[in-house]
């Protein structure tokens, strides 16, 4: 509710634009109205992140001031982005490194494992293919949170509890099915004749996949990569239980340590959040077009 309320604040610029369009087009009035609604919608969805950005530029006394000021009055504290890495709550540089390593290696593992399977299931028949794809779909509906109690014990028994490896495997396994599914639909869209021509020239299956198919399905691969990366980057539930050492925890878990403190350093929480959110937003924006439809490939048709 609170996020919708500030809507009117954006009306003036939208109204100005409405006028310009109104003189050019027959349906200008309606277009202007749509743009105004669009601006309000955009503002509502961006508002928490604007609050985050503004908060990250306040001083400690400003952000804890009662009553609070909407905007910084003592100048923009860009220095927060330097000093925030050294706080008593959690070793943030380590948390950032953990987040990066877990997300990068989980994504690489998914790519390595899912690409051949996606290619093979899109191209060839084999006994048990339906069962295999069924298994993949069921996995897609599960999340680490559902199995955390089992995963926690399993990692303890394997002796890899509280390691990057454990979280790389978990993130890879739970994002595998989506990546496989989307790549499968891209491989399936390539005419088989292309493969057959290459095979006639004596190319093996691996060569056909790498040389002939991969250049054609790269949009699918990019989508799978970005999606896996973003989801591993933001994973919370399993990391919360499995990563017990402060240095090993990803940012999602580390940042919750600030909450409930007597005087939380919100400016640092928000600074770190901005640093962690901007790269993934850019990645997601890159595949914005493919988010429509691509995500539910096979299901919505």
């Amino acid at each position, binding site marked *: 509710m609170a996020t919708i309320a500030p809507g009117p604040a954006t009306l003036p610029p939208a109204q100005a634009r409405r006028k310009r369009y109104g003189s050019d087009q027959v349906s200008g009035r309606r277009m202007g109205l749509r743009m105004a609604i669009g601006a309000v919608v955009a503002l509502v*969805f961006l508002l928490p992140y604007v609050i985050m950005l503004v908060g990250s530029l306040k001083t400690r006394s400003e952000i804890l001031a009662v009553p609070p000021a909407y905007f910084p009055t003592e100048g923009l504290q860009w220095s927060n982005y330097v000093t925030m890495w050294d706080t008593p709550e959690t070793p943030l540089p380590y948390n950032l490194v953990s987040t990066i390593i877990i997300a990068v290696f989980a994504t690489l593992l998914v790519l390595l494992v899912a690409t051949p399977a996606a290619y093979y299931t899109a191209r*060839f028949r084999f*006994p048990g293919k339906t069962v295999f794809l069924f298994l993949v779909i069921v996995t897609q509906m599960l999340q680490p*949170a*559902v199995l955390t109690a089992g995963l926690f014990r399993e990692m303890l028994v394997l002796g890899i509890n509280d390691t990057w490896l454990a979280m790389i495997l978990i993130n890879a396994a739970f994002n*595998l099915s989506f990546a496989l599914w989307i790549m499968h639909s891209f491989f399936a869209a390539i005419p088989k004749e292309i493969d057959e021509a290459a095979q006639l020239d004596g190319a093996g299956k691996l060569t056909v996949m790498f040389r002939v198919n991969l250049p054609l399905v790269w949009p699918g691969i990019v989508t799978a990569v970005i999606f896996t990366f973003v989801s591993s980057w933001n994973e919370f539930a399993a990391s919360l239980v499995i990563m017990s050492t402060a240095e090993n925890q990803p940012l999602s878990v580390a940042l919750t340590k600030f909450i409930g403190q007597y005087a939380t350093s919100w400016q640092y929480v928000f600074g770190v959040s901005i640093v962690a959110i901007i790269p993934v937003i850019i*990645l997601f924006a890159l595949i914005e077009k493919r988010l429509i439809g691509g995500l539910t490939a096979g299901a*919505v*048709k």
Partner: protein
Amino acid sequence: MSAQPVLANPAASPGRKRRRQNSDGLPAALPWIGPVLLLIFAIVIFPAGFMIYNSTREISQSGIDQGSAGFANFADVFTDPNLPRVLLNTVVWVVVVVSLTVLISLALAQFLNKPFPGRTLVRMAVVVPWAASVVMTTTVFYYGLDSNYGIMNAFLVDIGILDSPYGFTKNVIPALGLAIIVAVFVSIPFTAYTLLAGLQAVPEDALEAAKMDGAGRFRTYFSIVLPQLRGALAVAVLINIINVFNNLPILRIITGSIPGYQADTLMTYIFKVLQFDRRVDIASALSVLNFAIVIVIVAAYVKIVKPMKEL
């Protein structure tokens, strides 16, 4: 199952013949699909089985298996005085969040499907909460509605909705209400995009025919657009049910400072038992209960959406 769509579509039969020629049997397929199977077995199926096994064991707080407990853990779970409240919270949480999300997303998808200058930018803005970490998004709301220094609270006072800042995260009902708003906020992007995909499949000529016949906007929406959206809607609803049911960070942050279990859902309760009580056996029994509910939802997904029909 896989033969069905091929039979239903006569044009596909030459392809079927060719595909059969391509079948080399399971041994030839294993190098290609083996790693996927290994990962799914090791990280999804094994822990699920292990969790079920652990739910019948007695496990000490330091993690040592002290032998069989039979169904004692389940007996503990089902006689737990907190369980009725936790289950009630879970049902309210899922039903309210999913219905609000779907209703708002239906309107938003309809709007984002109309052409207007700057539409791409608005669509991108809508993607942001989807890409951003739920933990980080939730912290903003938690901070913003703090009763002392929260700027959302200050804003509500400035525009006259509140007389004085209110401690939203201090009491059970307002905290759950706030958590619901945050959950709806972060669930809308995926839902709106899924419904947008469905809207783009609505045939243009059907809409024009309806216009010709003099059907009003509402009539057109309910008799042409909505039936076409059925598939997308089913996917959106089911995936949202799963996601909201299993959500941990929102409630953990917003209701985390409330003592006791009055504001817990099954998921946050499991994590409290696992982390604070260090009772892996009880947490496993609770997780098995949770897992059983998820399986029922997944079965509904497979039955209603029939994701295999494309194969």
